[in-house]
């Protein structure tokens, strides 16, 4: 599903965000990427979504070579991904349902099917019946659930999440992480960047540890404690 082979990313100003990173993720796997602030977690996710291009190395997602990928091919890659952001990035002038439906609109899904899928996604994140609500009327945790619903509504094979619990209290964080665990049961591959080590330990999934751009550890789920 995802293959990093000696990938490095150097930003134009000279900062080395990732250095010689190699790992592979199988389809249906769930794993976390952790590390201190500036370790390269967000850059790693940006490379997978082709928001950034690797400076060196080989990177494949869904069998696509992201290094050689042309600009016009990027939207297709992103339509096959679900992205969850720390700050939700919801459109506040649209309803919850309209926010969730946006990936389906972009994919050209028929109106009726959109409605069904949005209702299904809302149920999965525990917000059934809240489709007409404005995002501003929801709590932070509920807004993050809407962000997750938007990421899963087009049934992508891969979901990437950047600090999805960064703004949430421990109890809400646990609930959000449990949502991802439930999604994994439907066959999704899930990659989550988080610096919340105690939470990751409780989730007991594979963990990649980054430090100053280097991948210093790849801990299997069985050894997480």
């Amino acid at each position, binding site marked *: 599903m995802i293959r990093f082979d000696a990938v490095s990313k150097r930003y134009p100003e000279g900062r080395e965000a990732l250095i010689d990173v190699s790992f592979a993720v199988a389809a249906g796997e769930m794993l976390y990427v952790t590390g201190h602030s500036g370790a390269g977690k967000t850059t790693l996710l940006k490379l997978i979504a082709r928001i950034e291009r690797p400076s060196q190395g080989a990177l494949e997602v869904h069998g696509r070579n992201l290094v050689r990928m042309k600009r016009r091919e990027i939207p297709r890659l*992103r339509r096959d991904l679900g992205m969850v952001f720390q700050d939700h990035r919801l459109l506040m002038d649209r309803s919850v349902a309209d926010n969730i439906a946006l990936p389906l609109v972009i994919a050209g*899904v028929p109106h009726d099917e959109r409605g069904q899928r949005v209702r299904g996604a809302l149920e999965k994140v525990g917000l059934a019946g809240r489709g007409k609500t404005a995002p501003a009327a929801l709590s932070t945790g509920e807004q993050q659930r809407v962000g997750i619903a938007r990421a899963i509504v087009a049934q992508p094979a891969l979901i990437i999440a950047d600090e999805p619990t960064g703004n949430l209290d421990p109890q809400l964080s646990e609930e959000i992480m449990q949502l991802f665990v439930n999604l994994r049961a439907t066959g999704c*591959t899930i990659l989550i960047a988080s610096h919340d080590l105690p939470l990751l330990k409780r989730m007991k999934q594979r963990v990649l540890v980054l430090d100053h751009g280097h991948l210093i550890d790849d801990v299997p789920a069985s050894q997480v404690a």
Partner: protein
Amino acid sequence: MNASSQAKPVRHSRMAMWRRQHAWCLRDSLRQLVRRPIGTALTITVMGLALALPLAFYLLLANVQRLAAAVGDSQAVSVFLKTDVAAGAANQLAANLRSRTDIGAVTVRTPRQGLAELAAMQGFGDAIHALPDNPLPFVLLVEPHAGAERAQVQTLVQALRALPQVDLVQDNGQWRARLDALVALGRRVTLLLAALLGAAAVLVIGNTVRLDIRSRAEEIAVQKLIGASASFVRRPYLYEGAWYGLAAGIVAVLLVLVLEAVLAEPVRDLVASYAGRLHLGGVAWDTLAVTLAIAVALGWLGAWMASSQHLARLGNSE
């Protein structure tokens, strides 16, 4: 359930996808316009006025041309004979003139015909009835031969003026040439005005769309992150420009129709004074349809220019 059966990305035929995307963008662009009614109304009014002006000029010009056609043929020369020239002498002179190679046709208008024509014109009826007898002379309407040059016509006019039976020769072609020159100038001014105001309309729409793109930068970023193509992102703004253009075109057409309605009564009086020889008209429906099409195209062009520039700037990061 296994992974392959559950986690399938959404796939639809390209044509159906394209159609649904357009339908959504069309509705979304309308929704954005309705959300800010005052700004939208102002933009439409400004653009509508800019389009109405050249349309009104076009209407005026078309009617000046009709007026010129009604007043006289381009090359005709009116030869007023002396009042003591009798019918026989007038007809003899007409016959002599017809034999000239530089004359195509000669029509004799009797004093009675002239009087009847005057009586038919509004305002002259009572005055004519008050006359003790008919003061009008015989008039010969002389048509130079087809294709005669202006200089040849002027030579003919000189020759006619030299005839002893002739009192006055009126060269209709001279003032008609001036009128034609004025109409040509008016047409050029109208085209120039239309081009300038069209450019202004494009800039107004372009600026409005530019501001809209700036205010929706976050939405554009989110759309790109979740897989929107550059054309999908741009489409609502193009539709927005086209909506502005259509609404402004309708405003322009309504303004011109109102102008027509306001001027209807004086125009009726003017037409009546020409005893049925003058037929002034409004803007034809096909012209109005073309105006609407041009307005939509201008709106679309303004939006295209603004979105090309600003979306490219926003899209520099992949």
